[in-house]
């Protein structure tokens, strides 16, 4: 079996979550690589939408911006932000992949500030389209390296909704019914959410890791799924596509 790095692992695992003939709102970086990999391998009829208006492009290379020309290269339509976001709001978009500086046990994300909002220790970009995608798309997924600084008990700022305070709180918030966090993909494991409490739980552990490794690198208590799978590592074909076709210069997979 070919050697791989954690980014290649995360992207491969993420790509397998995308059903064929489904739709996904993606950003730059790993999410876009995962969508491209899915399109090439398991989900040839995946509909990719970019928040700035690119709809169903034939991506010639990784975009640098979710609005650059690559995002509507040979596309079905070069539309507007409203075209994409309204489609998400109408329930037309199945998946989205997000990231963040912090994530909590309900899958809420912080990409706004560390410290006080008025005079922050660190200012991050803010929501961008993340809050929009996470509110509207049916199944929100996160791709992120895992450590206790990132997986925290309490966010400094709740930028983007996961299951909010767990339980029924998201449904009560006013956000569209039935949408919410689905899978969290880290460099150690795959997590989903326990159906009632909406707390994060481990469902699959990557090769060479144990549940204890995962818990140690998490600032809150993780639940365990009834059965915990062993993550299937990236296949040779996945790696070949990532390295030769999707990211030959290693911008994302960092080779």
């Amino acid at each position, binding site marked *: 079996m070919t050697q791989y790095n954690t980014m290649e692992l995360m992207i491969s695992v993420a790509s397998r979550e995308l059903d064929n003939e489904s739709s996904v709102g993606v950003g730059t970086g790993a999410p876009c690589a995962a969508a491209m990999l899915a399109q090439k391998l398991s989900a040839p009829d995946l*509909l990719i939408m970019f928040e700035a208006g690119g709809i169903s492009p034939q991506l010639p290379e990784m975009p640098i911006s979710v609005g650059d020309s690559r995002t509507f290269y040979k596309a*079905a*339509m*070069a539309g507007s932000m409203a075209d994409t976001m*309204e489609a998400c709001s109408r*329930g*037309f978009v199945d998946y989205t992949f997000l990231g963040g500086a912090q994530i909590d046990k309900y899958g809420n994300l912080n990409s706004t500030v560390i410290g006080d909002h008025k005079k922050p220790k660190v200012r991050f970009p803010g929501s961008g389209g993340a809050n929009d995608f996470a509110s509207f798309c049916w199944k929100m997924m996160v791709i992120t390296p895992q450590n206790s600084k990132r997986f925290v008990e309490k966010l400094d700022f709740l930028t983007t909704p996961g299951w909010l305070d767990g339980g029924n709180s998201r449904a009560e918030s006013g956000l569209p*019914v039935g949408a919410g966090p689905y899978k969290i993909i880290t460099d150690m494991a795959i997590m989903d959410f326990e159906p009632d409490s909406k707390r994060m739980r481990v469902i699959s552990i990557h090769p060479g890791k144990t549940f204890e490794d995962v818990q140690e690198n998490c600032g809150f208590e993780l639940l365990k799924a009834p059965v915990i799978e062993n993550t299937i590592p990236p296949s040779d074909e996945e790696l070949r596509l990532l390295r030769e076709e999707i990211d030959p210069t290693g911008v994302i997979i960092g080779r």
Partner: protein
Amino acid sequence: MNIIDQGIGPLFMDPDPDKARAFFRTKKRKMKNKVMELKDAIKEFVHDGDYLGMGGFGANRTPVAACHEIVRQGRKKMGFAGHTATHDMEILSAGEVYDRLDVAYVVGLEARGLSPCSRKYVESGKVEVTEWTNYSLTARLKAAAMGVPFVPIRNIMGTDTFKYSASKIIECPYTGKKLAAMPALYPDVSVIHVHEADIYGNSRFKGIAVSDLDLANASKRLIITTEKLITHDEIARDPSSTRIPFHLVDAVCEVPFGAYPGTMPYEYFSDEDHLKEWMSVEKDSEKFKEFLDKNLYTCADHEEYIARNGGSAKMRELRVKEMLIYKEK
């Protein structure tokens, strides 16, 4: 929410965005070949009782061929968005296709006068009517396109148009001003006629958009009739020109002259003589029956309708008129 006032008109369609989301969740995302005959598209996607939206405006880029086919197949008890509905409504009235009508502009053909048939049907008491305005229907489609249950606008208030609408007056949380909340309108099915579409439904048209982009987004099912099919490569070469993307579309039907006897911008002008004939024969129920038999019920399709009314010579003549070539010296 404090509701300051509300209209007494029936609200024919549920504006609940979560119900619409549940539907759109099931809609196909695949870019697949959707080309079919118009009669098959109408059979599959337009059902008795459905609420119907029509693209274009006032006999301009109106899907006339689809209206004929709906009548020919005998659809009944439909809802209809009368958003400057002119010749399309005249045809649908002849077939008594609808029994619920959201009105912005109906029963007339603008400068051409009123349609006796449409008037008679709407005056018959067989049709439930709710009043709106052109912009308020556009706003209702916009709300649906946005996936929200309403958007506020600032007209309609103070009038009987409001009183006989199904809208509600609310207070602005920022300014305290009164606003008219327009409930989202998600048509069950709509038809839009365009200049060019690929086999997946990616569509282009020229000239005014009217409210067709919001209509396309708002509609649960969408049939595209197109003057001609083009390659997907041509769409991909210039995605800035796509107005309606494939994922909104359920069927693509190539129907040359599909807006005849109305106008198709840059292609053919309306056949005013034929439209006058419609309005004239409507006054006499015997004559009208004969006229409909000839022009609609016994026509296999739109091509036959056109063949019976001048055929390609007439089409060339209407092109000269549309392009104002007759004014050149």
